[in-house]
């Protein structure tokens, strides 16, 4: 088997294995797996509305995945996507509400505000890592909590003690009347184009610029890079800032696209943490992130339809979805066995 065949076969087999084990779980707990998977399928692709909502769900996952993947390429573990997303969410909503500008200024302004907020939030762990060698995992996790409660408090201030900032001005909205009309009022918005453009941007930075080369070099070997004359500290901070900007944009997608407001939250959105899995599933490459985000977004969204259409309890659905993702993440194991089988053949 050539390498290319293996590369295609691995994800296919892992998805099938995941589906099979998920089916067994449903069977054992007394639910019809065929009905369950039909519901999942319909939940993702069933009609225009479902497809629109699925893409809507994929959008923030794309950006969250990019954020984790980008930092990872410089050898940094950005667990702070959640926090960066929340500050981005708030920044975009605030700009969306507080200003009244023509759309071609207002919308970019709100988007950039979100990216800057996320970048600023990630700058702190980057700086601490570069200057004082404080591990970025600890700092970013703590920054998540700070972000959650700070944004909650700020939303209260903005809304005079309420729990919701109120709807943003239409001039800052990513909402699309066209998408609404073709997807039966799904919340699909223009943000998907921004997300895809960012995928392209990440690829461009990493593969086509000197900065990207340096960032990757630092990721491969910090000491060698320093020896080669690169400014490691600068690159660490830069990488975190860019990663934070991606995460902030994910927040903008929620603020300007899906929700059109920011509200006080009791807990994290989960998008940031799922972003880690999205990035790792995609092997931290821009194209891989698309794959990871599509898989995660579709399964997460489609899963909502399983209790709705097939009457399977949410708990079982969570297990089934987790199993599918687990098997996809186990691709290495399958690759290992395929290659082993390959070698034996060649030996014969």
């Amino acid at each position, binding site marked *: 088997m050539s390498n290319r065949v293996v590369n295609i076969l691995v994800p296919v087999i892992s998805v099938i294995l995941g589906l099979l084990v998920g089916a067994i779980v449903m069977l054992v707990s007394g639910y019809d797996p065929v009905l369950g998977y039909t519901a999942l399928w319909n939940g993702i692709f069933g009609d225009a509305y479902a497809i629109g909502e699925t893409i809507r769900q994929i959008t923030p996952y794309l950006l969250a995945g990019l954020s984790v993947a980008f930092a990872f390429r410089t050898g940094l573990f950005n667990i702070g996507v959640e926090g960066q997303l929340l500050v981005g969410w708030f920044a975009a909503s605030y700009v969306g509400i507080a200003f009244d500008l023509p759309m071609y200024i207002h919308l970019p302004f709100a988007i950039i505000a979100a990216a800057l907020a996320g970048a600023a939030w990630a700058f702190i762990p980057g700086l601490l890592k570069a200057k004082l060698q404080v591990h970025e995992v600890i700092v970013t996790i703590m920054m998540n909590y700070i972000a959650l409660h700070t944004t909650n408090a700020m939303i209260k201030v903005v809304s005079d003690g*309420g729990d919701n900032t109120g709807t943003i001005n239409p001039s800052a909205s990513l909402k699309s009347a066209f998408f609404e009309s073709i997807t039966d009022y799904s919340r699909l918005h223009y943000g998907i184009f921004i997300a895809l453009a960012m995928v392209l941007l990440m690829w461009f930075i990493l593969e086509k610029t000197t900065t990207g080369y340096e960032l990757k070099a630092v990721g491969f070997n910090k000491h060698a890079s320093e020896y080669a004359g690169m400014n490691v500290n600068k690159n660490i901070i830069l990488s975190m800032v860019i990663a934070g900007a991606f995460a902030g944009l994910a927040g903008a997608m929620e603020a300007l696209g899906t929700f059109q407001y920011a509200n006080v939250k*009791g807990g994290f959105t*989960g998008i940031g943490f799922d972003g880690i899995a999205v990035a790792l599933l995609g092997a931290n490459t821009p194209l891989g992130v698309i794959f990871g985000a599509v898989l995660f977004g579709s399964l997460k969204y489609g899963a909502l339809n399983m209790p709705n259409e097939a009457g399977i309890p949410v708990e079982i659905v969570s297990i089934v979805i987790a199993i599918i993702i687990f098997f996809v993440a186990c691709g290495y194991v399958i690759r290992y066995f395929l290659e082993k089988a390959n070698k034996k053949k060649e030996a014969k």
Partner: protein
Amino acid sequence: MTKRKFGLGLSLVLAAGTILGACGSDEETTTPKESEGTGSEGTTEAVDFSLAMVTDVGGIDDKSFNTSAWQGIEAFGKENGLEKGEGYDYLQSASDADYVTNLNNLVRRDFDVVYGVGFLMEQPIKTIAEQKPDSNFAIIDSIVDAPNVASVMFKEQEGAFLAGVAAALMSESKQIGFVGGMEIPVIERFHVGFIEGVKAVDPSIKVDVQYTGKFDDAALGKTTANRMYSSGVDIIFHAAGGTGNGVFAEAKERKTKDANANVWVIGVDSDQYEEGAVGDTNVTLTSMLKKVGTAVQNIANDAMAGNFPGGKTVTYGLAEEGVGLADSRGAIPQDVLDQIDEYAKQIASGEITVPETME
């Protein structure tokens, strides 16, 4: 070579399995629908009315708010011979982003009334109500101004006032705790009412107020309760949904270790007596009832009779028997109950007005 063939064979079997599985699915989905058709013809006594609700992230087994709403729907369903799934159903939300989708899914299944349970549902209901002007919605704990939305509000402060009176009269240490979920208007009404009730009995009693910021974190509720009980608090009133289950867990743990421990919990929304059972004893002093279930049923009955209260706001207070205290099952002596009743009468008649917010 044999291995290769085996491998190929295996993948073919797997592939065939999924493809055939997909084929089978079509038949599977069409058959139950047909049988449903005949089923509904067979059962004549079932009314032609259906209702469903969307929960917030707490889920219907939060043993307080969502549970109460779901029980109302279930009771209505059983009364009218409806079947779960067809006649009444619920969808649970995993995150804020799911509210709109879940509401929309239920609208598409043609439920006659779709309930959004909780203030978090305000914006989603507003959005969907605009998009689907022909469907009827109801929202609990928030007001949505739309012709096809019925809003239900509760005077939590009145029920909480009675809980405060009960706590103040029953406390031995003269220290009482309040554990809130998120700091939102609904919970603040519980908070304010409770404090007012305590003050009405004895202004010198100290009330330790803690907001956990979450409705679904029992572990956090447990640590908060632990700290309160350790500092000398003997009665805790919680208004924190699933987080409050941790308050019960902590009280029960203390009661198990030491049968004479003076720890009590006042439950919220539903009668939480069963939550507090420790062997033969119980740590539940009483529960402040918020009869979401009754409200849900009332709207359903109105809608079935063709009088859906769209665009209106119904407020349930003590006078409407929408809030109140649960049976204490002997935990509160009769003379205290009499005093509580006295306050209840004064509130219901308007002699005492309980403020909604801190001032």
